[in-house]
């Protein structure tokens, strides 16, 4: 080892979008493939990002490969723009993509990266939603071998997954899958739609916005293209059900901040031990509150 060696300190500057251009191009090629085969898990050479695997490195690579200087980015985690991980990712994009605007308002964003939620506000054809994915394969619960899962996907053989649902109904009278609900895209591939709640699954169906899903650690990209079928896997005679936010009397619980009765709620326990509820989508909640106060003033 050379004792006189000096670190090239000027090397610390990063190119736009952190990744080298070859890497970004490859990711974009895989995105195109994923859109062309709706729901198919396209393998790609996921790069190491400067945050942990599992913290959204898959989503981030999609975002960084797609983003340009004229884009407006919104990053949310658990529905909130201000959660630690969302802040972290947004700061990183700001650091490595000079010129990119960031926003908290869903309608202003051209690109939305999210973990575990789809914004409450209806997305448009002008927007791309990037979802971070820890487990890309819905079949992993019934088949550990990736090679065998690939064959099952190819043949659209999801009987073992349905058997799991069958066993659920037998044992609990209910399908117990809470989030990551297996969803069939365009009538063939079943995807793991990332850990979004069941509440968000119907919003994948015929979505005007392109939805891209990126798994960094598992090195897969898949897509729900605009206006594509996205159907949760169920039996003909057992309906798919989203989360139930009714109280003991069957009344729909309202957000304690904006009073909304149509949004996905976070359950909170305050210091006194009382359970209260609040919109999980913080931007939506704030906008509702603003509308209400504007109405009051008027």
């Amino acid at each position, binding site marked *: 080892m050379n004792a006189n060696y000096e670190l090239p300190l000027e090397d610390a500057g990063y190119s736009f979008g952190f990744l080298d251009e070859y*890497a970004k191009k490859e990711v974009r090629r895989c995105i195109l493939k994923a859109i062309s085969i709706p729901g198919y898990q396209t393998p790609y050479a996921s790069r190491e990002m400067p945050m942990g695997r*599992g913290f959204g490195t898959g989503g981030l690579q999609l975002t960084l490969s797609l983003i340009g200087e004229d884009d407006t980015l919104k990053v949310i985690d658990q529905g909130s723009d201000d959660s630690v991980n969302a802040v972290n990712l947004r700061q990183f994009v700001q650091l490595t993509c000079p010129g990119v605007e960031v926003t908290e308002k869903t309608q202003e964003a051209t690109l939305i990266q999210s973990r575990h939620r789809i914004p409450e506000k209806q997305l448009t054809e002008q927007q791309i939603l990037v979802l971070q994915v820890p487990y890309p394969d819905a079949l992993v619960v019934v088949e550990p071998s990736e090679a065998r899962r690939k064959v099952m996907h190819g043949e659209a053989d999801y009987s073992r997954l349905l058997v799991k649902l069958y066993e659920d109904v037998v044992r609990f009278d209910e399908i117990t899958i809470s989030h990551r609900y297996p969803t069939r895209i365009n009538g063939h591939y079943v995807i793991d739609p990332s850990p979004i709640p069941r509440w968000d699954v119907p919003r994948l169906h015929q979505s005007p916005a392109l939805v891209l899903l990126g798994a960094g650690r598992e090195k897969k990209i898949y897509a729900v293209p605009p206006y594509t079928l996205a159907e949760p896997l169920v039996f003909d005679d057992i309906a798919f059900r989203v989360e139930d936010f009714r109280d003991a009397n069957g009344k729909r619980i309202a957000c304690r901040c904006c009073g909304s009765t149509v949004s996905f709620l976070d*359950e909170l326990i305050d210091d006194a031990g009382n359970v209260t509820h609040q919109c999980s989508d913080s931007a939506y909640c704030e906008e509702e509150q603003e509308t209400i106060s504007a109405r009051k003033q008027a």
Partner: protein
Amino acid sequence: MSYVAIKGGKAAIDGAASASEYLRSKGSLDEPLTLAMIEEQLRLLTSRVVSEGGLYHPRLAALALKQFQGDTLEAAFALRAYRSTKPRLLESPVQDTANMRCIRRISSAFKEVPGGQYLGATYDYALRLLQLDLANEDPAAFKAVAKSFLRDTPETELPDNFPKVIDSLRAEGLLPPVAPSRAAAFDITRDPLVFPVPRSAALATMARAETGGLLAMAYSNMRGYGDVHPTVAELRVGYLPVMLPHPVTGELMEAGEVLVTECEVVAMYEGTNGDELPTFTLGYGACFGHNEVKAISMAILDRALQKGMQDGPTNPSEDPEFVLLHVDGVDSMGFASHYKMPHYVTFQSDMDRLRTTQQKMQQKESEATT
């Protein structure tokens, strides 16, 4: 703290970063660690980081170790992320490890091997007794160690390089001849692993693997969840000249050298094909830096995986998917850490399912009792 379910993220992150920095500099010392200290005196630690980071840059490895306060997983991770920003400029040709300038070289298969056994620096036969005088080492005495070693060691003509032990086994027909390589080596930084994968992909993945993870997999095979029963034909540690084509003339020239540990194990023969004579089988391991346990583990797993690829895995260590998807330190530590992130939404959804199920069960019970 009252409810701040999800607000205040930016402040929290900034605070966490300064708290970590505070812990790095607090304490009784005035002097920060120098990179040279880490690189030179913690050379085996640096070795781990260059190998698991998949980037041969000992000085940056030392920096990463300093920055992440000795966490090898984090340090290797930082090297990988740094590497993600760099384009791949060219592909080197195959480097011949026979050209290695060895600092250590042993074979446990033969008492004597062509070129001789060179024990070199190893703790293998050291008594693991704490050397308490190192606790307050006098700088002068410290300097004297190296000096006296050099003074007392007779100047012998060490050969520039050593013949490979397995070449003699090959010459005797105890190992199969080198199969001509058909395809370019698989680059795991450019292509995802889609199973089945070629052997070169498995070797590259293991060369970057986390040492402990790789050792655990290999150990399972050694203990009985497998039957490789290896003999170390040769283990060598040394500096390998890296030959790259000249950008203009295309002629190979030495661009530098990397410290490498290489291990070749020989395992028992298996059934043969047709009229060919049976031969031993070979397992290969190599990694950046000086890390013998990793090179041996890799060599054993290489043999186990070749068997699994050929006959189908009968043990976890023979299953390419099982081994290759679970030995990467960056992947596995990242995912273990991610469980610390908020999971409010999914947990809300979990509670919804549990409550509904409980209600249904209670309903059923009350219907049954009435």
